[in-house]
């Protein structure tokens, strides 16, 4: 498949870089570029691709969306479909379709929802901070989602409103993901937990506990997911101290 392909839509010719999209798909979902055909959504119908690389101009109704990838505000969707070949064996093909309705970029200001911020870390491209920040891998994001789920379970187990427990999520320039409990919502005890860039054999997270009104009272170290409750109990003063 060539790097630049074209889709002929009602809005005109639209070009996009299939190489980078396919690389993202391979990285995230282990999809490979063989047997990828092209199509375009136009008002929920599939259009006809102009590119000569298209191997199948008419795409049958897809069975399942495997992944979506947003590039330059257009959504690219990989669809998985099965069809019978001449010898009646099933074969799985992947189709790449482009939703040409322009999408809005993720609003890092208005969206404070932790889950959405974690998921949208995948949108950040290489050197997203203007310096050398790396991209966030699917694996790392999944680990962050595990930690997020654990905090939700914690809130339920402790009878707390999740809005009081919800962390602030921030992408770090060193490639880690910050879970922050600090600022006006936490005037006395504060907590930071970092999801590392590289996966370790025994998953552990860097943490920092600090007491705002006590100079120098800080504790830092590493904790595993099953110790998260301990630091959260400290944060919410449920540890008896």
């Amino acid at each position, binding site marked *: 498949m060539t790097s630049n392909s074209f889709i002929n839509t009602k809005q005109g010719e639209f070009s996009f870089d299939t190489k980078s999209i396919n690389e993202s798909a391979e990285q995230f979902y282990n999809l490979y570029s063989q047997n990828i055909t092209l199509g375009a959504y136009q008002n929920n119908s599939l259009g006809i691709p102009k590119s000569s690389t298209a191997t199948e101009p008419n795409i049958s109704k897809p069975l399942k969306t495997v992944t979506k990838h947003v590039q330059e505000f257009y959504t690219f969707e990989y669809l998985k479909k099965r069809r019978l070949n001449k010898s009646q064996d099933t074969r799985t093909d992947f189709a790449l379709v482009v939703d040409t309705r322009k999408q809005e970029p993720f609003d890092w200001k208005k969206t404070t929802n932790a889950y959405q911020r974690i998921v949208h870390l995948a949108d950040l491209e290489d050197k997203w*901070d203007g310096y050398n920040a790396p991209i966030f891998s699917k694996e790392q994001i999944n680990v962050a989602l595990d930690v997020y789920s654990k905090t939700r379970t914690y809130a339920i187990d402790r009878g707390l409103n999740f809005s009081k427990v919800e962390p*602030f999520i921030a992408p770090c320039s060193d490639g880690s993901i910050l879970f922050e409990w600090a600022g006006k919502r936490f005037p006395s005890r504060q907590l930071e937990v970092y999801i590392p860039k590289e996966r370790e054999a025994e998953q552990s997270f860097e943490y920092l506990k600090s007491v705002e009104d006590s100079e120098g009272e800080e504790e830092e170290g590493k904790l595993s997911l099953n110790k998260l409750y301990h630091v959260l109990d400290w944060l919410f003063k449920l540890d008896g101290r």
Partner: protein
Amino acid sequence: MSEIYEVQPSDILLRWLHPGQYKWDEGRATSAAFRDEEMSVDILCLTTLEESYARAKKINKNAIASLEVLFVLEKGLEVIHSPIEGNHAHAIVLGKKSGSIPKFLAKNSKIEIYPPSEN
């Protein structure tokens, strides 16, 4: 070859922020912006806030925080002037920044240019 400037404790450093690293409702930078082991900054006395902001805007970064070198040195870090193409004021804050250091730097930084409110 650019002359290398010897950074002074009284110098001010400028650091670009991604909107995701900025706590909008509290108007402050988070530790997330101060974690790199080789942290890029601009030395203010070798440029201007406007020039640094213009460089940041070119790559869609639109907030700048300042930080006194004094605070950086207090944590045992080193600041080295390291000019790059198109930016004579570029420097690197060297040293591992884990634990309490990023939080300390964030707490002692000052927002010089806030992200636009319509972003």
